[in-house]
Structures are given as structure tokens and as C-alpha cells.
């Protein structure tokens, strides 16, 4: 047995602590980037102001304010220099710990300056692009007059997109679950059904949804399939999108169901619940909670794909906007459609965030 001896008093073990390096290079870099950012912002703002033939006082004031805001990153850059001075003084006084803290704070300030400056540069580049060619870019995409002229027609036509999306989502929720359950059927008896479900999922994930829509809407009405031939094109579009998105969502369901620990199956079956009842009351309810985010992802995809209705001759928002755009030779109406899609998507994203948050809180034990 050897005894471990403690190091003698005052004697240091390990290499001596290194003094903190100077912050100077980083501070110089931070200041340089901040100055470049301010210059870029000034140029971009000047051309932005130039777009207006007779800039009002209000406009000038706003632009001046923005210009001042773009110079703000210079402040932390300058601070980095001052803090570096403090580091040097502390070091000279032999206060290693305080010097180290000052160096860290200095680096932090320089980094903050660079982070904000880079953002300013990116936004300035965007503004420069929008104002390029004396504002032709901005005018092509966003002209107030065309927004005013087209927004009501486009919004009215957007109703079809919403209808198809909502009904499609309802059917997808049901149909995809059936496909997923089919894919997970146990035993020898389930094998052919498992196989069929797999083929369906593989096929419809492979075929572009625009082609499925085309084939379903024109094909089914052309072939005069009983019952289905009487469907309106809108309903056929719902069928087409349901077929495509059920393939995706079936996989989401399957992943969710398979993610539930086998011990839940054992517990439920040990109580005498049958396979189907276990699936319905124990497994699927837990799986659904877990898959809400990926499910919503696919739903947003489905909503966006309603813009494909244009290929089957339905006048949805995009079709309406294209007509108007062609008339006025300007893309502003299409931008309006884009904005409408953004408007309906963002609340859903926030809603999912809230659901996840709630689930976390409950898992945290504060129910």
C-alpha cells in the first residue's frame, strides 16, 4: 500500500497558469466589421430613399433612424478595446484571475459586435438587391397598387386551397392510420396486407404529387368510374392529395407506434386487453402525442401542394394570381398568394410549439 502525499503548502502541481492573451486582434476585427456594416447600410439606405421621387420628411426620418441603428454594433467593438486595457492593467498588477475575466468579457464584446454587424451586412445586401435597377426588383414583386387591385380576388380564390387542404388533412389522418396499422399487422395472416400497405407507401411516396393529381383528376373522370365520375374536380383533388400524403403520414404513424416501448404492450395485454383494444386505447393515443410535430410538417406540405390545383384547371389562389399577373405584367399578385400561405402556416407552427411545451410540462410532473 502506498500512501498518497498531498503537495506541499504553496507548491503548485501541474503547469503554471498562462496569462490571458490580448483581445486586441479580435477587437480590431470587430471594429472593422462594424464600420463596414455601417457603410453598407448607408449605401443601401440611400438607394432605398432614392426609390421615392419625392421623399417625405417622415420617410427621411425613418431612414435616418435605421441608419443610426445600423451603426450601433460599433459600441460593443469600442467597448472591447476599453476592456482589453483593463486586462493589461490587471495583468501588470499581477491579478491573474481578474485579467482572465476581463479578457473573456472583451472577447464577448468583440463577438457581439461581429454578430450584429454581419446581420446588418446581410440585410443591407438584401435591400441593395431589392432596390437594384432603380427599384425594378422591388416593383416587380411588390407594387402597392397591384396588391390593392388583386388581394381580394386572390383571397377569395384561396378558399379552394383551404377547403382542399382541410378535407385532405381530415382524410389523411384517418386513411394513413389505417395504412400504418395494416403495415404493422402481426403474424402470417397479416403478411399479404403488410405487403400491400408497403407497396402503397413506396409507390405514392415515389410519384410526384403533381402527377398523382393529374392522373386522378383527369383519369378517373375520363374512365367514367361509377360514383367517382360524379365527383367535382375539387373532390378529386382532395382524393389525389390524400393518396399522396397518406403515404407519408402512414410512415409517421408507424414510427410513432413503433416508438412506444414494448412494455406498454405487455402491460396492456397482461390486463386481458386484446391486440386491437391495446392499439386503440394504449398505443395509438400515446403515439399520436409524439407525432404531432412531424404530422404537422406533412400537413404544411399538403397545404402548399394545393397550389398544384392550377394544373387541373381549378381556379385556386395561385391560378387567380397568375391570371392577374399576366394581365398587368407584374408578379405582385403571386407574392400575395405567397404571403397568404405564410399567414396560414405560422400560427400552426406556433401551435405545435405550444403542444410540445405542454407535453414537456406534463412530463415534468406539474400536471
Amino acid at each position: 500500500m502506498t500512501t498518497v502525499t498531498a503537495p506541499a503548502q504553496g507548491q503548485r502541481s501541474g503547469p503554471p497558469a498562462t496569462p490571458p492573451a490580448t483581445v486586441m486582434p479580435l477587437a480590431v476585427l470587430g471594429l472593422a466589421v462594424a464600420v463596414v456594416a455601417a457603410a453598407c447600410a448607408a449605401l443601401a439606405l440611400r438607394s432605398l430613399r432614392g426609390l421615392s421621387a419625392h421623399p417625405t420628411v417622415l420617410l427621411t426620418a425613418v431612414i435616418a433612424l435605421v441608419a443610426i441603428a445600423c451603426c450601433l454594433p460599433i459600441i460593443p467593438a469600442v467597448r472591447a478595446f476599453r476592456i482589453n486595457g483593463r486586462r493589461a492593467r490587471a495583468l501588470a498588477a499581477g491579478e491573474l484571475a481578474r485579467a482572465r475575466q476581463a479578457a473573456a468579457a472583451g472577447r464577448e464584446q468583440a463577438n457581439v459586435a461581429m454578430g450584429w454587424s454581419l446581420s446588418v451586412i446581410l440585410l443591407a445586401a438584401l435591400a441593395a438587391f431589392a432596390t437594384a435597377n432603380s427599384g425594378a426588383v422591388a416593383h416587380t414583386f411588390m407594387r402597392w397598387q397591384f396588391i390593392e387591385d388583386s388581394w381580394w380576388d386572390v383571397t377569395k380564390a384561396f378558399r379552394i386551397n383551404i377547403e382542399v387542404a382541410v378535407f385532405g388533412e381530415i382524410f389523411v389522418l384517418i386513411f394513413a392510420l389505417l395504412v400504418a396499422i395494416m403495415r404493422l399487422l402481426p403474424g402470417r395472416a397479416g403478411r399479404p396486407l403488410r405487403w400491400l400497405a408497403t407497396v402503397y407507401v413506396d409507390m405514392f411516396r415515389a410519384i410526384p404529387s403533381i402527377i398523382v393529381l393529374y392522373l386522378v383528376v383527369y383519369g378517373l373522370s375520363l374512365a367514367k368510374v361509377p360514383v367517382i365520375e360524379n365527383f367535382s374536380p375539387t373532390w378529386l383533388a382532395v382524393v389525389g392529395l390524400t393518396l399522396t400524403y397518406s403515404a407519408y403520414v402512414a410512415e409517421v404513424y408507424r414510427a410513432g407506434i413503433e416508438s412506444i416501448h414494448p412494455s406498454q404492450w405487455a402491460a396492456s395485454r397482461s390486463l386481458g386487453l386484446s391486440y386491437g383494444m391495446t392499439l386503440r386505447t394504449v398505443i395509438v393515443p400515446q403515439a399520436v402525442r409524439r407525432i404531432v410535430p412531424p404530422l404537422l410538417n406533412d400537413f404544411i406540405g399538403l397545404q402548399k401542394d394545393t397550389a398544384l390545383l392550377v394544373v387541373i384547371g381549378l381556379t385556386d389562389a395561385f391560378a387567380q394570381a397568375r391570371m392577374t399577373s399576366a394581365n398587368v405584367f407584374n408578379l405582385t399578385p403571386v407574392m400575395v398568394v405567397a404571403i397568404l400561405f405564410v399567414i396560414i402556416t405560422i400560427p400552426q407552427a406556433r401551435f405545435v410549439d405550444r403542444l410540445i411545451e405542454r407535453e414537456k410540462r406534463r412530463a415534468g410532473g406539474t400536471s
Partner: protein
Amino acid sequence: MNFLQIRDVHKSYGDVEILKGVSLEVNRHEVVCLIGASGSGKSTLLRCINALEEISSGEISVDGDVVSGAGVDVNRLRRNVGMVFQSYNLFPHMSVLRNVTLAPTKIGGVPKAEAEGRALELLDKVGMRDKATAYPDALSGGQQQRVAIVRALATNPQVLLLDEITAALDPELVGDVLAIVRELAQDGLTMLLATHEMGFAREVASQVCFLHQGRILERGSAEQIFEDPQEERTRQFLGRILTAGRL
């Protein structure tokens, strides 16, 4: 006629044979403790009894009915044979009350109000009545396990299988759960326990079986096994547990 009869049960997973011919008879109101090292087949044996695992050969009968092999109504069997697991396995999306009433209402055909009344009564017995509306995540391990026991009892099983139910618990919570099992034993419930709590096994068991590598190597009364084990392996096992301070 024994209440539970296990005859020469074999169980393999692929090429690995877990149970190599286990036979065991259990009478009504008996408490049988299965002891042995991890991997000796205790859990597998319990899971075979309520058909969570299909046995490879042999025969299991409960109350005179053969319950192994094809064509058995496993759902009916499981209502007579309750099971409690090491990791509780409560349903996390259901309240405590719903966890307990699920099986009686869904398959026992018991009206909801009646099932809830009985559930509250059982929860009261284990000191969990005030947690009836809580969700499992908000409970400690010991509390969850008490609810799991109540859930298994809610279908009025004739046998209860307990699979190392205290193995995942903090030491100070073990006592609460064992107290409940002790009470059930005194009430005359037939039970099979796989356990590492030797002191407890010694106290409640009417029969102790030592499993080793898929076989019951030695069985007898608690006194016989703990005081005077005949097999070398049993002596080794108990000796190791004794030095680990668990007896």
C-alpha cells in the same frame, strides 16, 4: 389438483434455450418465491404463465384448464392471472383512476361508476386515493408501483405474478410496496414472485424455488432453502447475497 400446474416447460428464443424443463405446482393461497441470478429464467417463467411469451413445449394449466398452446383464449386467461412489472408500466396518458378502471370497464363489462368505486377502494387500501386524478409522471416510483399493483388487482385475478417489482425502486420506497404484498399474502391471494429481496421471501413464501440456468435446481419451504440448502449452487448464490448484505 393443484391450482397452477407447470409441467416440463421449455422456452427458447431462437437458438437460446431460456427455460430447460421447468415443473412447478402451486396451490391456492400459496405464495411462491422464485429466486436466482439474473438470466436464470425467473421473469421468462412468469411471462410464460400469462402467455406474454409462447412456450416451446410443455404444459401450463390454471384451475384445471390447460392455458398453454394454440387456441387458448389468452385474454380470458389474463383476467385470471394478473401481472406487475419491474418498471411499473403504467399508461402515462391516463390518470391513475383510468389506469385502474381501464380493464374492468373495457373487458370486464363493469359499469364505469362501479369500477371507479372499487378502484378508489383499492387505491385507498394502498394509500393512493388522493392521487386518483394524478398522472403517472407526477408520482414517485413507489407510488407508481402501488398503482400498478392495484391495476392488476382490479380485474379480480386468482393469481398475481410479481416480476421483481421492487428492483427499480429507491431503497426507502421498497418497504411500502412490500407491505402491500405482505397484506395480499395474508388475505390469501395466490402469488408468484420473482424477487431479490431474500428477507422478504423468507418471511412470506410458502415455497421458495431456486432457479439456475433455466431449471428449478432446488425447491422447498423458505426454512429449508435458506437454512439448509442441499445444492452447492444454492449455497453459493445465498452466500454471495449474504456477503452483499441483502439477507
